[in-house]
């Protein structure tokens, strides 16, 4: 059992070191080196890394490129935001006192509904009155959506570029709906002014620090979960399917089920990220859910290395920090820089940061000792070095 955890969940020696380094950076270095504002910013970035990890699983290993991950991230976020908004609305009503309530306000109704002449809470908002139900829905809604999309597409053998474009269209559809159904979703502004979670102030600097740690731990948890999946036979089947789908089918597997599964896992991870984002920043907006952010999420994953779960986290941090820094310091040039980085990474470093690190450590290792330990049957999952043939 002990070796199982060591080999599969942590990824053997190199995997354990990698994970430990990331844990130290996230849980020690950043909190010590940064003020509350910066740390909150990192928390915000890390909420996006959940999507990138999901993309490593479904794109890097499974070969399924989704350009609509923002959909799942957003749905997760919106679900939690709905709960927080109802709580905020109740608080406002309580503070105002019964006699002072404005004639226009319906007690306990989110302000944007009021502005849109909605006087009664829509039925699908009811579950968000309960935190346990909300937490279930945070995962359930995006995962069920992914399941429906996945089943419909993969059973029909829609794949590759076609799948990418269809998910993009679906993502756009969702944004359009969320923007225009203002009374139900807060429209273009989204759901804003979220302050408390069961009375616990999420805007308080100290509490934001706690949220940062929760986000980091959940993220590390997702990395371990991803490792477990990749280390199982299912993980190998994903790689097999990505490269030689026909053979897998003729080994008696229903390929569509496996693709749907990994797509759902990626969706669920994204949803968790969306929910953590809402807690870290206190709002949710359709602008974060649309096509461009979804492509950015793919780019986080590509820059970090599409075959590396840890790389996805570093990629997200690097691109997000870069974007913030350059857009503040060089407003005219930062798009050139970002665009240039994407082109460079795709053309020269298709395995991203992780690929570069692998190459460097590989060089060092091969110089230090030429093949010290030949891999035995116990070899843990090592992350393949060459890119998938797309």
């Amino acid at each position, binding site marked *: 059992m002990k070796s199982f955890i060591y080999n599969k969940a942590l990824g053997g020696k190199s995997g354990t070191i990698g994970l430990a380094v990331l844990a130290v950076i996230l849980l020690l270095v950043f909190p010590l080196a940064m003020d509350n504002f910066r740390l909150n910013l990192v928390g915000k970035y890390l909420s996006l890394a959940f999507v990138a990890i999901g993309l490593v699983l479904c794109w890097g290993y499974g070969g399924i490129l989704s350009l609509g991950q923002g959909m799942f991230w957003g749905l997760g976020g919106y679900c939690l935001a709905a709960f927080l908004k109802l709580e905020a609305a109740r608080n406002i009503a309580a503070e105002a006192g019964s006699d002072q309530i404005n004639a226009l306000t319906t007690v306990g109704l989110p302000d944007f509904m009021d502005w849109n002449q909605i006087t009664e809470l829509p039925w699908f908002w009811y579950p968000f009155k309960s935190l346990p139900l909300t937490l279930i829905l945070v995962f359930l809604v995006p995962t069920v959506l992914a399941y429906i999309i996945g089943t419909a597409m993969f059973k029909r053998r829609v794949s590759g570029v076609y799948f990418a474009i269809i998910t993009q269209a679906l993502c756009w559809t969702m944004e359009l709906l969320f923007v225009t159904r203002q009374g139900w979703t807060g429209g273009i502004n989204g759901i804003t002014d979220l302050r408390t979670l069961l009375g616990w102030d999420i805007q308080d600097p100290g509490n934001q620090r706690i949220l940062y740690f929760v986000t980091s731990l959940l993220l590390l948890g997702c990395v371990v979960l991803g490792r477990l999946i990749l280390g*199982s*036979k299912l993980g*190998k089947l994903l790689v*097999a399917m990505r490269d030689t789908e026909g053979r897998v089918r003729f080994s008696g597997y*229903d390929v569509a089920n496996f693709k749907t*599964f990994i797509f759902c896992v990626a969706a669920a991870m994204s949803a968790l990220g969306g929910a953590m984002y809402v807690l870290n920043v206190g709002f949710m907006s359709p602008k974060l859910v649309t096509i461009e952010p979804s492509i950015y999420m793919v780019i986080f994953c590509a820059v970090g290395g599409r075959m590396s779960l840890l790389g996805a986290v570093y990629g997200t941090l690097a691109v997000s920090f870069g974007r913030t820094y350059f857009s503040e310091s060089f407003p005219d040039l930062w798009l050139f820089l970002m665009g240039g980085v994407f082109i460079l990474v795709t053309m020269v470093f298709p395995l991203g940061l992780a690929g570069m690190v692998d190459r460097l450590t590989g060089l060092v290792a091969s110089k230090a000792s030429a093949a010290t330990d030949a891999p035995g049957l116990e*070899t843990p999952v090592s992350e393949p070095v060459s890119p998938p043939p797309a």
Partner: protein
Amino acid sequence: MSLPTDFALAVENLTVSFDGFKAVDSVSLYVDPGELRVVIGPNGAGKTTLLDLICGKTRPSGGSIQFKNQELVGMAEQKIVRSGVGRKFQTPSVYPKLSVFENLEVSVPKGRGVWGALFFSCNQEVRQRILEIARDIFLEDELETEAELLSHGQKQWLEIGMLLIADPELILLDEPVAGMSVNERGQTAELLKRIAKGRSVVVIEHDMNFVRQIADRVTVMHQGKVLAEGSMDKVESDPKVIEVYLGH
């Protein structure tokens, strides 16, 4: 429709057309349990299409395929495989980024569902079986090699091994010795004879020496139809077959 038979595989009146072109034209073929049948014929005779039809890769326009008296036409590919049919493709189709061991592990017929695969454990029994198969296919020294690094012939063997590990009752092999050295061909002939024990094998092959070495019976196809059938000697002396191979 058809009565139960003793055949392992009974193909009847099988037809498929692509845009009006009949690639396989009312073919009937009966394979006994334990028989090693070789299908030969010039290029474009419809041999590969025939295998595609049997394993469900292509849907026929008419006819029936009975495997152990079970109708295969209309079944999903993975269901056909699970009922006991294994297929090797013309260009060896293995998983390039997985090791030989992993290639075989992934082909183990356990944990074929999503959850089964997730919680599949490669225990001692499974490992033993993989080693056994690896020995059979002459790859016991290459277990940790990534499959893309194998030679063409070794890839062919690996794919055969991936079928064997599922222990199918009917094996369909499309040109198993293409790209192999004379030595390797000899080894493969022995391998095929060994694996044919207790199951039926249908082989497509061009190499006549190889065919003579292994075949119980031979079916000659030409332009989508069965031209002749019987022992190698009988087929070789059939004037129609000579016409097809030497004529024009």
